């Protein structure tokens, strides 16, 4: 049985949490005590006999305000598939929490209120999911009950959204009319929209194929930790523990150790009391090398024939997430990329993305909360990066403010650049 991770997105109150509640409830995934407690909470808050959004809106403040503040993770399985759901907040103030949920998803449900149609937050969230490399969007045209179950209205909303998605370059868009409160087209079809003949949301989620994100297939092994047991039995053992970010590693294979630039061979690939014939992307192993080299945390073992760039200057798209700090040229921050943390400096802010028009305006003076745009960064020491479009694991990074220690940005490497002053 395979696993699908998806995220909800869209504007505040468009019905994301209600939809997830409905999906869990109608597929009989809600336990009796949980149901009883949301019934009690709904009645106590005057929300009718059962508000399904409370299945994910679990924080006190969320229930008081009737909105989602932070991502809730829910796990559920049907006989066909296992799912990890991240239910995100729609409020613009909590966009960074939506980005948190979307960063590990391979599909996004974009909710729209059928009466309101595509609004600014719909565009912002769609742009973010696309930037994060999510290739499959399901447009959930919700609250069809308030739009008289109208096919015409549905078609209008669909056309509007498809135009925008086309501009974004999103290829796979599936559009489903629904009503989360009453459940039409979520698990069950219902009787109000006979004109819709496509799949229900659950049918679609159970069968959709999403691509694997690693596409170049060359070995990338970020070293996390060096294992030196110093025991009699393993006296000279020196293993490099880590998780294969892409490609395959096999004993005997030649590798290049970065940043040392040394070529050597893999002596063994160990995994708890066993030697493996090979390890591939996602496997947590320990690699021994044939020669003693001074490899440590933050180094990377890679395929010598397809090595990543050793980058000290590159352009990247950033989602700026701090409400207190503004990003400006020459600012210094910590950058964490794979298992490596280095100092970095902002060389320039190159453009800012307008989520309404998808136009990029050149030369912004600063980035504030929720700004998205292109920057040029320089690092004190090289990072071993691939473009994000090629590899999520080796193309993503976060920026950390050195004084507050807050995570202030998520970044995606677009292009590695020549050193400043050097010929391109």
């Amino acid at each position, binding site marked *: 049985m395979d696993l699908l991770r998806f995220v909800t997105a869209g504007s505040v109150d468009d019905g994301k949490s209600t939809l997830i509640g409905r999906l869990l409830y109608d597929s009989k995934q809600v336990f009796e005590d949980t149901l009883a407690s949301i019934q009690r909470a709904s009645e106590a808050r005057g929300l009718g006999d059962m508000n399904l959004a409370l299945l994910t809106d679990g924080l006190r403040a969320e229930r008081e305000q009737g909105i989602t503040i932070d*991502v809730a993770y829910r796990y559920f399985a049907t006989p066909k598939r296992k799912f990890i759901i991240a239910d995100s907040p729609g409020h613009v103030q909590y966009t960074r929490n939506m980005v948190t949920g979307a960063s590990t998803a391979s599909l996004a449900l974009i909710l729209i209120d059928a009466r309101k149609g595509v609004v600014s937050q719909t565009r912002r969230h769609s742009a973010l999911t696309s930037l994060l490399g999510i290739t499959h969007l399901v447009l959930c045209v919700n609250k069809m009950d308030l739009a008289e179950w109208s096919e015409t209205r549905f078609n209008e909303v669909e056309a509007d959204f498809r135009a925008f998605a086309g501009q974004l370059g999103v290829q796979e868009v599936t559009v489903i009319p629904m009503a989360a409160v009453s459940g039409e087209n979520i698990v069950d079809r219902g009787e109000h929209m006979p004109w819709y003949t496509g799949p229900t949301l659950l049918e679609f989620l159970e069968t959709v194929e999403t691509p694997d994100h690693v596409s170049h297939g060359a070995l990338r092994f970020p070293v996390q930790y060096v294992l030196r047991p110093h025991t009699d039995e393993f006296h000279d053992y020196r293993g490099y523990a880590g*998780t294969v970010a892409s490609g395959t590693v096999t004993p005997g294979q030649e590798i290049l150790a970065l940043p040392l630039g040394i070529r050597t061979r893999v002596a063994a690939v160990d995994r708890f009391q066993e030697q493996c014939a090979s390890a591939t992307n996602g496997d*947590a192993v320990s690699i021994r090398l044939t020669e003693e080299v001074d490899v440590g945390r933050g180094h990377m073992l890679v395929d010598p024939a397809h090595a990543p760039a050793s980058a000290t200057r590159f352009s990247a798209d950033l989602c700026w997430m701090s409400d207190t700090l503004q990003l400006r040229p020459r600012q210094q921050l910590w950058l964490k990329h794979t298992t490596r943390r280095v100092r970095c400096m902002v060389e320039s802010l190159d453009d800012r993305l307008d989520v309404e028009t998808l136009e990029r305006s050149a030369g912004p003076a600063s980035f504030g909360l929720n700004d998205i745009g292109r920057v040029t960064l320089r690092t004190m020491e090289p990072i071993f990066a691939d473009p994000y479009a090629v590899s999520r694991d080796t193309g*993503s990074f976060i920026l950390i403010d050195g004084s507050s*220690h807050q995570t202030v940005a998520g970044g995606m490497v677009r292009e590695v650049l020549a050193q400043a002053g050097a010929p391109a």
Partner: protein
Amino acid sequence: MTTETATRGARHTELDMLEAEAIFIMREVAAEFERPALLFSGGKDSIVLLRIAEKAFWPAKFPFPVMHVDTGHNFPEVIAFRDKRAAELGARLIVGSVQQAIDEGTLTEERGIRASRNRLQTPVLLATIAEHQIDAAMGGARRDEEKARAKERVFSFRDEFGQWDPRNQRPELWSLYNGMHIKGEHMRVFPLSNWTELDIWHYIEREALEVPSIYFTHEREVFERDGMLMSVCPYLPQLPHETTFVAPVRYRTVGDMTCTAAVRSDAADIRAVINEIAVARVTERGASRADDQFSEAAMEDRKREGYF
């Protein structure tokens, strides 16, 4: 027959993914913090956590102590199991004692029929963390357990008062965990965030892990309170109408005896437990934790104060 093999094979792939993720998280902790510790209660989740630790650092020993907050009201079977397991692994065991804090006068025992030491665990946990200068405490909590936990990050930041601020969590993108903090602050880390109760039992079965005997059916003297079966014990005063009887029961979670209830069950081995959970209609906390029933946001409130 064929289907059974097929689903079991598939299970392994999912468990492998969850295991690899947990190992990755634990290695990040070992690499980024100076004084991490693993919270080990002897319960099923922390047993899995300990197995992950063994695997993540093999053939070396895991580079951190294990830590437990003992309320003095724990199940004796579980405490015995905790000590045995720590000794087998040669792990250093740090125990924070609620009883000792009460004896020293730093904590006051709750009074009344519903008195429990559950809440007193938090100050003792925080004091133990401070005393040993622990900068990352790894726990076995899972997001599927409870609605506030469903919202918590894998690396969950605690301020100098040990508090969790659910309205202001750090963004956590991809698997790039940010462990930066200053002295006095610390991180709670949950490598099993994405596991479900069923995953835990499948893993225990696959790895043939030993668990305390109270997870399986046994005859026990119990009485009923608020629809739950509480074990007869010296720490839990019974009301006149709460009559004692003997029933075949097991525990779905293990915690303080004053607030952990048993469930009727005749599941005698791991397979039987898995079959039971696969069709359960009540969550593990709903079935066995009196401490969550007090109010709508009981867990969130305790977590804010610094609970596990």
